[in-house]
């Protein structure tokens, strides 16, 4: 292995080649954003989808349309928004 000379502050440093930074792939970036969103809302996918399914079952029992359910159940609307955001990112994986 050939060492490379670098002068720094009066020092002579002989070192191997510097590691080049490897940027995250698009998939890794999307996964990182999903992780950040899920941590932000403390709402991992299994919990989120279970709550959405429960709300939709209840809405169906009350004969709400999806649009009505979004208006009447603000928690459900918030969950759906996060879920849609994450679904879009998941599509990039």
């Amino acid at each position, binding site marked *: 292995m050939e060492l490379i000379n670098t002068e*720094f502050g009066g020092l002579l*440093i002989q070192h*191997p080649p510097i*590691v080049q930074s*490897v940027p995250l792939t698009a998939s890794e970036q999307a996964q*990182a954003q999903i992780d950040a969103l899920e941590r932000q809302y403390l709402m991992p996918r299994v919990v989120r989808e279970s709550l959405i399914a429960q709300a939709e079952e209840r809405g169906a029992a009350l004969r709400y349309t999806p649009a009505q359910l979004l208006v009447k159940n603000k928690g459900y609307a918030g969950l759906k928004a996060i879920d849609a955001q994450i679904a879009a990112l998941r599509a990039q994986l």
Partner: protein
Amino acid sequence: MSASSQFLGAGSSVSLWVSGSTVAQWDYRKSPLDGEVYQRTAATGGGTTDPANDNTNYVASSYVRTSSLPQRSEMDNGVVNPSNFFNGSVRSALGVINAATRTQILSVSGRGACGFLGLFKHASGGGLVEVIVDGFTILNYNTSTANSTSGHVLIGAPGEAIVSTLSLPLYAAIADGSPVQFRRTFVVWYTPATNASGSNATLGYDIKALR
């Protein structure tokens, strides 16, 4: 004049060490090799070895001289991408070093300090790490590397990060607040034992210059 003020208050009052001359126990001498002040801890006597090269009879007084480093165990980062090791340090690509081949992987000449040193072999199996400071071997360590995702932090500390749900204990490099100082040379050798290092093998270091 107290012994310490001999060099702290008036550096010029410390005599230059002269080969063969007698030095009283607990007296100070300035090394012609590096200009630093050393205190004779051995009984009054002479000698022909410069105090900078004599850590048997002298201790460094004008700076902290590290005489030994601990043999730290490995940590498993769980990944092989070198981008996930020792971020924040200067990272050098070691690549493949053949088994049983003693290879100099870092050499620094001058006056400085090393606050971080990390080694990622990217292959299982042991290897001998030697850290030699101003001619003294302060680490001679046969590392044991369980798998290709493990690494060693030999100076400083690792910083953990979560990347894409993975917990990476060796992601960041945190420099030691009391770095290993050197006055002339700082050299690192690595000798893989029976397995060569992998293509992603990486050395991380943090060196600062001192004047």
